[in-house]
């Protein structure tokens, strides 16, 4: 009896053992519980996009398809995919901008097209979302135009060419062209504005030279902050970078220039070596569902690719939600651009060096 009582006494060793077991168990429990669930590895943006994906859209997908979504939002994605094995890629679905998707497709890292039989919602997208200028499918787009301060008395801005007006010297904003999609698209626009077309690089370089002095940033988030602080008065930006401050009484506005707006597509592709093809296609189809598109569009101010989406009036008035509005989008030939990227980068790095 005494022995039994003694053996049940809580010694320090037992206490530590029990404590360690409890700790390990607590840490491991979620992984053990989910060990049976298949995992779909995707990429995705941070900020508002990341918040709603984590809070609503992602969990709803996990619940419906009995799987786990593992999202990498640490940009850049492509070098990581490039470094991973082709047969066991780091991602199943790659979400990034169109220029990078083209580079990925050229390297054989993603499948160039999505199979409409496996993704039925593809039948409902606007033609631009699956055009020959798109690898995979564009699930959303933004319009790249001009962002301006409304409290500086600049007057009515209607054309891209007003960015070259000397009154904006010191408050003009652009991008680091080698690393930014908006900057690259804008370079092509310069060819159209001052030359024979998008591919007139000489005209574009000459135009960029005349754009100095200009403040350049790498990400649109940085441009938004510069515009909000007044560091920049007129800049190249996408509509969602302005509209997301709607209702906050900020003295900024988006201008859709008369020459047309450039398309900044949010593109999904599937990696050829993915072991989760069925789930990957289901994810692409899910992201194109009208209700998912509506929720995301009204959160991050992206224009939905699905024609059937009906947005609330406030969003419908500003985003590209009709065939007429969508027809104003100018898509860039990223395949052509990427083939000359090294040459372009060398030239623009020289143009913008201090």
């Amino acid at each position, binding site marked *: 009896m005494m022995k039994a009582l003694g053996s049940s006494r809580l010694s320090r060793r037992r206490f530590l053992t029990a404590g360690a077991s409890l700790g390990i168990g607590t840490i491991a429990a979620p992984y053990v519980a989910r060990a049976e669930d298949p995992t779909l590895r995707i990429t995705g943006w941070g900020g508002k996009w990341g918040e709603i994906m984590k809070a609503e859209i992602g969990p709803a997908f996990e619940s419906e398809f009995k799987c786990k979504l593992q999202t990498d939002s640490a940009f*850049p994605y*492509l*070098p990581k995919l*490039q*470094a991973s*094995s*082709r047969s066991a890629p780091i991602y199943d679905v790659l979400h990034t901008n169109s220029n990078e998707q083209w*580079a990925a497709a050229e*390297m054989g890292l993603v499948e160039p097209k999505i199979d409409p039989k496996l993704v039925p919602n593809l039948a409902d997208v606007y033609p631009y979302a699956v055009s020959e200028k798109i690898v995979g499918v564009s699930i959303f787009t933004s319009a790249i135009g001009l962002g301006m301060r409304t409290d500086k008395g600049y007057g009515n801005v209607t054309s891209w060419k007003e960015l070259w007006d000397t009154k904006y010297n*010191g408050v003009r904003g652009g991008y*680091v062209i*080698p*690393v930014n999609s908006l900057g690259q698209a804008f370079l092509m626009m310069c060819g159209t504005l001052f030359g024979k077309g998008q591919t007139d690089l000489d005209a574009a370089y000459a135009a960029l030279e005349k754009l100095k002095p200009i*403040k*350049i*940033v*790498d990400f649109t988030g940085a441009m938004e902050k510069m515009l909000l*602080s*007044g*560091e920049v008065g007129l800049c190249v930006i996408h509509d969602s970078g302005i509209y997301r401050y709607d209702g906050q009484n900020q003295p900024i506005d988006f201008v859709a220039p008369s020459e047309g707006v450039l398309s900044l597509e949010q593109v999904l592709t599937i990696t050829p070596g993915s072991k989760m093809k069925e789930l990957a296609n289901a994810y692409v189809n899910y992201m194109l569902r009208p209700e998912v598109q509506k929720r995301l569009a009204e959160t991050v101010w992206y224009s939905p690719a699905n024609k059937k989406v009906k947005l609330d009036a406030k969003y419908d008035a500003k985003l590209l939600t009709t065939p007429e509005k969508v027809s104003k989008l100018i898509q860039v030939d990223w395949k052509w651009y990427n083939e000359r*990227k*090294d040459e372009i*980068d*060398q030239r623009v*790095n*020289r143009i*913008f*060096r*201090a």
Partner: protein
Amino acid sequence: MSSASTTRPNGVALFILPSALLFALFFFLPIGLMALMSALTGNPVVMPKVAFTTRHYARIVNDPYYLEVIWTTIRIGLVTTLVALAIGYPLAHWMARIKSRTGHALLLMAVLAPMLTGIVVRTFAWMTLLSDKGVINQTLMSLGLIAQPLKLMYTETGIVIGLVHIYVPFMVLTLTGVIGRIDERLEQAAENLGASPLRAFLEVTLPLSLPGILAGSLLVFALAISAYVTPILLGGFQIMTLPILIYQQISANFNVGFAAALGIVLLVISLMLVIAYNRALGLVSGQRELQ
């Protein structure tokens, strides 16, 4: 018994083994792989046919733009080192010679305090000071001293200011130890023999503190030429340095081979500096074996 003792592994060797393995795994292996990638046409792990090439290095040598980038990187490193030394030496001398323990502790805290904040935060703080709408320009403009904002950011000067602020503690801490070990009686003897305090400093303290100056300068220069965050934020991408170019090649051009070649160039610059440092140290301290 004797055979057992001869086969027993050396205790010190066993003690060093983990760090040696760590060093081999996380230093030599990555650098070796980087050197290999810089001389290949592609990644052999994912590409079926790759061959040896010198094209990445030829691109660096043949395009003056890359040579300009290398020179800009070295220039920023040199200026940062010189300014950090000019600011750090008097501070280190003061710290080493201050009699009050409280005073020493306060100085040490003042030097270490900035290191408790992240580099990104400190650089953003400089941005709020140096930008066109920043504290300095707004103050000067409100006082009517300037009509247009001074161009403090997006210049090499802005980058150097940020880097000096970050790396001065490294210089001070390195120098304090060396100056603190110099016998003060040597300076007193020089002054007793008729030397002025300045001459005693120039002919006694300064030469004896040269190993510290070289070590601190080496540390600051190596950190400055490999800095990424500060040059990119304060230079606004208009000042291209090697680390920025390497990141650009990997993140946007996906050209790992060229990025690796640029990395090797950065490494070679650092190695040349270490060799030059060892030679200089050998010469000033008279220890020829250091060479």
